[in-house]
């Protein structure tokens, strides 16, 4: 073995310096990636020679409990590739503008000598406008100076505000948590301007509507360390290895600690590899599986075994013991609304008696009115909003009766609709009667209704299943086989393993769920079906339990103070927050291509459920359920001027004036006339996101109707025969947008199609903050190097836009303007108890009362000459307190504290304000004013929560309440967040955050109608749409969904369901264009096909294919794999059009698009309702979501490839 002699000669080894030299670097700086992945990973950025050379993960997160694995390292293949972007050829280095636009602008500027007049001349000349709109996306970029770019932007702002109103200026930026100050920069500018922020969580279809439905919460989930506390994990629609890369070790480590794991997924994917069992459920059919699981749980664990932990939990924390009236429809009985307390003489005079509910006391058999309902929350007398077993009116203790099975007046046969067959069946339910002013009312408990719904007969008569093998009866294990493709035996075994684990551990079973479920049309129902199995086994609000939804859910932890800064609330202005799905559905004219939803949505037949989605949107807007901007077919400045001219003074009279004008038809809602020029959105800011591609459901419709450039959509406009309220114009407008501005560090598709691209500083070049719900730390972005070339941080760019806008205003709009802002009825406000019934004031069904039966209207002064001053100063409305989610607290002393640092103040109109001109100043203000990062404020927030609930929360206050972190502290180490009642999980002593532990352990109510977790949703709209009880609805059929009316299969294509889950080589579109990710993947985003489908189509691995439907086409290469089932294909979210996309032979040899070329939005209308408990609007919290999973396409081989 002579060849392995030691090499010890030091001289011979001197060459080893070669690699040592490479390793040596000059400094290491902490930052992270402000990308929409919820990872929130702390990184060390290595700088050598003034150049960022590589990044490596920071390993210094504070420790949690010793029994938990540590959070280190965090970071994935994508994050570690980021440094490539900094100096890459795809980096935007200078402000860019399309030549076609700058030429016209310079010409007009030369003529008029004025930027605003130049802009006006362009916009008022249809040919000039068309000229540059047609050129969008087609090359011809030119470098311009910052000054010139800003001048054009400022001119467009003022021109639009003056001519049409500021609500035609909109902005889109997603998921603030990833770089919260960069988000706040744009939103603060927009809100101070009177512009509109588009929501994102719902638009992305990441908002799980079932969370507000069940818990009155947007999303609240455990941090990933808590997976380790679980003893049974079911994963569905979430590919943890792929998308939760930095967290998945907790999953595997949990397995080696004796946890059982089951993965549901149609394809054998990265996380399936980890599981004890992989269940290849048919795509989108998970709901049927879980309905049957709940059937088994209810039958065995609840009815037969009456497992004490489950029964007690269900009584205490759910609406199961609440009473529901049964209404007579002809000969039949159907479940109706929850019984209200004030139907009884005993509670007749209770405050908010319409919003207090009833239970029956087990012992006395008498009615009780449980405390903790929304009526108690919003009543004058505080302290009754808790979920103790106490009558909220009398204070008497009680123990609720869960079921009337043993104490009833009669068994009634109740109609149960099974939507898989669209038929009604009858099942016996025990009822009692109560005599009210309205007569004799039959009622039962929610629990009894569920037993009937799920088919657990308990010896009652009716169309109940005989046993588990009864496949003809809904929700049995055998029934679900036809939909899920999974045997009844599998369901039964799963259900037993599930509830036995929950029983043995007091609720340590969890579901991890994601986009693979949430993007289906009926996602809310699939979620509810799994949630049932969790709640009924006491797995919510328990460490190791929970419905843990991870997709786009990034948690902005210090939302209290951040919310103030980003919305301009410090200047006491109302914010224009727009629910994006309805906005895009209407403005990008996708509604025109949509048939009647009732044709593809499984709904009972009634007047409400048979309307076109667009009509229901119009109703939701005027009723104050949903916002819509622009508001009216008139400039709001002019409306107020005219109102004043007509003698209105004060906001009440202005409101009245507007109502009269609406009634007379002199003034119209924009939403009813979206294709009138006056109602177009005009100026669009895009930052931190890819609004025109990866976020653009109906991308080709965006290109056509927003941009007016080339598109590949061939769909029929079919809505004409259905819509009644929305005005139909024969020719849909193309090119609604005057100006699209994109802030970006890379040339992505949105940048490529924008008019102006502003070079943004990247995540290693600016200061910012990052938080997530995957962990419980807050940590910074910081500048390892200054912004490269001419790029600037978003905070600075929007500050500059504010500056030039103010300067132009001094000339063109110097007088303060009065604006009127329409606000929908808001969640966590008294508006939650405003609309007991659906009544349309416009149809004369009730009186128009702003903020009650209709939206609110608030007048506010806009002085554009002061816009910049306000942007850079923190207004003194902060002194009135900050808060979130219904909890607020005083912080005037900390505001004064900021003010006392004279070096960091500004004077506006002679008054001094804390400066937030610099990003770090804004960050420090945020940290000092949040209950998550300032111990004193956490304490105050708990005191405030105690007053609201009457519950003693004193031992949750932080022990060291002095701590207030600063930006510089975070640079040295990420900090764990403090306990705060604005969130629901407890984190003391290194305990892992798990949602709703505060509610379960301290009896703090959920923010729902009853204050409990809701199985039953008694909103009229839900009853009309057949979703009051958890149910199974079949997926929309492709022939009715309408994405394939025009496209024909000429015999060489195959109809497939296209799935677009999150991919391995990108976070949405980011990183997907980096050479590193492209090299490690297929050099592009392929279309994954099963071997069987590929064979039928004559497609071999790496062949070019066209994926198309009426909406558009994507051209790519095939990836043929036996891990994909036949009948589906996968295009991972999200390709870009900017690399490696050839032209499409099927669409006239034009450049093909991306996966969103195949989508068009379909909205689920029952998600529009409002003004009712948890069904009340809040941005990104409630409203229809932009579903995309039910999309079908033809896939065919592409024989000719042309770039």
């Amino acid at each position: 073995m002579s060849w392995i002699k030691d090499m010890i000669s030091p001289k011979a080894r001197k060459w080893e310096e070669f690699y040592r030299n490479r390793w040596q670097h000059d400094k290491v700086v902490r930052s992270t990636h402000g990308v929409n992945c919820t990872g929130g990973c702390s990184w060390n950025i290595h700088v050598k020679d003034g150049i960022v050379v590589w990044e490596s993960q920071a390993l210094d997160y504070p420790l949690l409990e010793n029994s938990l694995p540590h959070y280190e390292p965090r970071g994935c293949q994508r994050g570690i590739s980021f440094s490539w972007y900094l100096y890459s050829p795809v980096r935007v280095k200078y402000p860019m503008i399309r030549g076609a636009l700058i030429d016209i602008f310079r010409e007009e500027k030369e003529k008029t000598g004025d930027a605003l007049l130049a802009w006006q001349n362009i916009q008022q000349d249809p040919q000039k406008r068309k000229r540059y709109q047609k050129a969008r996306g087609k090359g011809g970029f030119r470098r311009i100076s910052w000054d010139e770019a800003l001048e054009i932007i400022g001119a467009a702002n003022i021109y639009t505000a003056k001519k049409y109103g500021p609500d035609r200026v909109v902005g889109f930026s997603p998921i603030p948590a990833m770089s919260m100050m960069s988000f706040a920069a744009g939103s603060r500018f927009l809100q101070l301007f009177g512009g509109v922020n588009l929501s994102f969580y719902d638009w992305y279809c990441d908002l799980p509507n079932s969370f507000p439905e069940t818990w009155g919460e947007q999303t609240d989930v455990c941090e990933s360390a808590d997976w380790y506390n679980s003893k049974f994990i079911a994963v569905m629609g979430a590919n943890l290895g792929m998308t939760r890369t930095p967290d998945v070790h907790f999953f595997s480590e949990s397995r080696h600690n004796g946890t059982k794991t089951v993965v549901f997924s149609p394809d054998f994917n990265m996380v399936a590899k980890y599981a004890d069992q992989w269940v290849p459920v048919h795509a989108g059919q998970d709901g049927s599986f879980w309905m049957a699981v709940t059937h088994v749980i209810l039958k065995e664990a609840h009815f037969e075994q009456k497992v004490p932990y489950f029964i007690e939990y269900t009584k205490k924390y759910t609406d199961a013991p609440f009473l529901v009236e049964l209404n007579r429809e002809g000969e039949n009985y159907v479940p109706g609304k929850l019984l209200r307390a004030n139907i009884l003489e005993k509670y007749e005079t209770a405050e908010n008696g319409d919003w207090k509910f009833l239970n029956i006391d087990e012992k006395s058999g008498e009615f009780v009115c449980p405390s903790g309902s929304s009526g108690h929350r919003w009543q004058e007398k505080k302290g009754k909003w808790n979920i103790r077993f106490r009558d909220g009116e009398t204070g008497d203790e009680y123990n609720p009766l869960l079921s009337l099975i043993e104490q009833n007046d009669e068994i009634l046969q109740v109609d149960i609709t099974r939507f898989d067959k669209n038929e009604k069946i009858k099942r016996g339910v025990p009822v009692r009667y109560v005599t009210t002013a309205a007569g004799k009312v039959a009622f039962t408990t929610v629990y009894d209704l569920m037993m009937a719904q799920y088919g657990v007969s308990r010896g009652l008569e009716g169309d109940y299943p005989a046993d588990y093998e009864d496949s003809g009866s809904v929700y049995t294990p055998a029934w679900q086989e036809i939909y899920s493709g999974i045997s009844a035996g599998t369901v039964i075994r799963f259900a037993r393993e599930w509830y036995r684990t929950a029983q043995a551990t007091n609720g340590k079973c969890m579901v991890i769920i994601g986009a693979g479920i949430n993007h289906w049309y009926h996602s809310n129902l699939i979620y509810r079906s799994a949630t049932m199995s969790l709640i009924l086994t006491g797995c919510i609000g328990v460490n190791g339990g929970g419905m843990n939804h991870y997709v786009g859910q990034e948690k902005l932890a210090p939302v209290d103070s951040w919310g103030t800064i980003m919305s301009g609330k410090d200047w006491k202005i109302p914010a224009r927050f727009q629910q994006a799905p309805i906005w895009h559905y209407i403005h990008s004219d996708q509604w025109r291509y949509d048939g009647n939803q009732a044709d593809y949505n499984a709904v009972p037949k009634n007047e409400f459920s048979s309307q076109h989605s667009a009509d229901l949107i119009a109703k939701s807007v005027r009723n104050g359920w949903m916002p819509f901007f622009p508001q009216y077919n008139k400039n709001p400045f002019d409306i107020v001027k005219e109102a004043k001219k007509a003698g209105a003074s004060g906001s009440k009279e202005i409101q009245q004036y507007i109502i009269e004008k609406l009634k007379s038809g002199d003034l119209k809602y924009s939403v009813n006339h979206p294709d009138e020029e006056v109602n177009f959105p005009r100026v669009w800011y895009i930052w931190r996101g890819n609004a025109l591609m990866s976020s653009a459901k109906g991308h080709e419709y965006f290109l056509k109707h927003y941009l007016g450039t080339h598109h590949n959509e061939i769909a029929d406009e079919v809505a004409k025969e259905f819509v009644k309220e929305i005005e139909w114009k024969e020719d849909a407008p193309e090119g609604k947008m005057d100006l699209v501005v994109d802030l970006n560090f890379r040339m992505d598709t949105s940048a490529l199609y924008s008019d102006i691209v502003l070079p943004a500083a990247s995540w290693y070049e600016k200061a910012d903050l990052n938080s997530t719900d995957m962990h419980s730390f807050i940590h910074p972005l910081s500048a390892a190097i200054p912004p490269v070339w001419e790029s600037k941080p978003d905070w600075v760019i929007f500050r500059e836009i504010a500056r030039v806008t103010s300067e132009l205003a001094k000339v063109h709009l110097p007088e303060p303007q009065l604006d009127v802002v329409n606000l929908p009825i808001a969640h966590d406000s008294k508006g939650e108890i405003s609309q007991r019934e659906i009544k349309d004031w416009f149809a004369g069904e009730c009186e128009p009362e702003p903020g009650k039966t209709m939206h609110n209207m608030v007048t506010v002064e806009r002085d554009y000459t002061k816009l910049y001053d306000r942007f850079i100063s923190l207004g003194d409305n902060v002194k009135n307190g900050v808060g979130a989610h219904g909890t607020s607290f005083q912080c005037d002393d900390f505001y004064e504290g900021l003010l006392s640092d004279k070096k960091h103040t500004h004077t506006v109109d002679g008054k001094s304000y804390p400066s937030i001109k610099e990003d770090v100043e804004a960050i420090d203000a945020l940290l000092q004013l949040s209950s998550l990062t300032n111990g004193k404020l956490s304490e105050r927030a708990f005191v405030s929560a105690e007053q609201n609930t009457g519950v003693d929360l004193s031992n949750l206050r932080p022990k060291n309440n002095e701590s207030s972190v600063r930006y510089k502290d975070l640079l040295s180490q990420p900090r764990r967040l403090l306990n705060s009642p604005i969130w629901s999980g407890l984190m003391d002593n290194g305990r892992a955050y798990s949602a709703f532990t505060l509610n379960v352990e301290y009896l703090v109510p959920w923010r729902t109608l009853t204050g409990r977790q809701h199985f039953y949703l008694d909103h009229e709209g839900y009853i009309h749409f057949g979703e009051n009880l958890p149910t199974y609805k079949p997926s929309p059929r492709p022939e009715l969904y309408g994405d394939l009316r025009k496209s024909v299969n000429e015999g060489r294509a195959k109809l497939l369901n296209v799935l677009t889950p999150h991919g391995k080589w990108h976070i949405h579109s980011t990183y997907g264009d980096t050479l590193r990710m492209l090299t490690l993947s297929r050099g592009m985003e392929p279309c994954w096909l099963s071997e069987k489908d590929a064979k039928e189509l004559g497609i071999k691995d790496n062949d070019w294919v066209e994926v198309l439907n009426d909406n558009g086409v994507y051209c790519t290469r095939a990836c043929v794999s036996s891990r994909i089932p036949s009948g589906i294909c996968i295009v991972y979210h999200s390709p870009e059009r900017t690399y490696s996309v050839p032209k499409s032979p099927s669409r006239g040899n034009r450049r093909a698009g991306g996966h969103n070329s195949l989508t068009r939005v379909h909205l689920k209308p029952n998600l529009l309702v409002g003004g009712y408990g948890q069904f009340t609007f809040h941005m990104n919290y409630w409203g229809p979501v932009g579903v995309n999973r039910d999309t079908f396409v033809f896939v065919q081989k592409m024989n000719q490839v042309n770039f």
Partner: protein
Amino acid sequence: MDIRSQISMVFHLDKCIGCHTCSIACKNTWTDRKGAEYMWWNNVETKPGTGYPGKWEDQEAYKGGWEKNGDSLKLKGVGKVKGLKKMFHNTHMPTMDNYYEPWTYQYEKLFDSPEGDDQPTAEPVSLVTGEKMTPKAGPNWDDDLGGSPEYARNDVNLKDLSPAERETMFQLERMVMFYLPRICNHCLNPACVAACPSGAIYKRGEDGIVLVNQERCRAWRMCVTACPYKKVYFNWHTGKSEKCILCYPRLETGQAPACMHSCVGRIRYLGVMLYDADRLKEVASCDEKDLVKKQLDLYLDPNDPEVIAAAKTCGIPDSTIEAAQKSPVWKYVKEWGVALPLHPEFRTLPSLFYVMPLLPAMAQINDDNNYHNVGSALWDDMDNPRLPLKYLASLFSAGDTTIIGNILKKLMSVRQYRRAVTVGDISWDDVDKIMLESGLTPDVAEDIYRLTSLARLEERFVIPPAHREEAIEMMEETHIHKGSTGFGFMKKPKRGL
């Protein structure tokens, strides 16, 4: 005894995510430059699959590693002598087709295309020719079983499976895949060292890291052929071979190698192993069936007083012995016997070890076209693994399925034990039975669980201090070095001497 120390690594395959963060950490630091584009010192392969370079395990084609030659060994392909004959025509070298043609995109088109009638896009162009190209292969082309007809079914390790057994693995419901991260094995019997005509490759005495001296390398490329793992790459720009250096500049400063530091699945463990170099030849040339056992026997118990005494005699510092006593690799490989070397039959005595992956239980699609459980409860189905034992045996035990089966059983026992402790829904009788069968005691089960699930970086990464001051002292005075290190001219990598 000739006791030496070797830095070794364990990869816990059950924890591997297949994310490739390790590959990029390595690439960013070491091979992101001209001539090194195609080098992936660290890569991750989807198994079954053909890996990188394509079918690298097929030594009939590549002639890497050693073969038994009577009681001795010879290189399968080129050796110093054979190599001289093949100096100018090394027929078993992988070609660009076996690797891939590196490419980039015309990103600049997005910025500088003049206005046209359609949207510009960045087309792929070859980094070799500069011409437009359609990528047909890449360093990770069969990731997640992409294109299984061409890739997974051509996995060399399927050789012992019958056609029916093979096809079963590619039915959707019986599908299987796992990830195999690979770096240079820093072998105890490295074929690359033996094959180098210039003597440019050596094994460092203090830690066993195998390095290609960038000053002495003369571009013979015999190492490329000789390495059966295909982990030596030829830099076409500098004309030198390069390979994984186990991040010695990081190790020397007490930091984990980049691949390990960045391992977000926390699957990697690094530690010292002591071995008896006197026995290398005997072990490397033994019968194939004894290879695994004999290699494991080479490693010496660092807690054994005799070994400690002998190690001291051989000049092993106390700090190294202490590190070896805390070595997580020692625990996985020797104490618990749940980690095995990759392809021991290549006879290079690799220093990296792999803990076997557990995979989902089997299920089947019955005549009713529905998915059915196998077994009556989860974990009942341990004797029917999704991945055929023969397949794992081909990778990790030179064909011995018994040893693989035992390891899987041990890992499952740990889980059962912890289930009994944390949930209690398994009877202790059942747990005791399986523990006895797999040879575990509760203490050991607890230790395995802790190191697998709870270990922090400082437990996963245990190496002795490098004592750079002692190395530098051999060339110049350390206080002089302190003031002058880094001064001088930077030496750029380039062709020539």
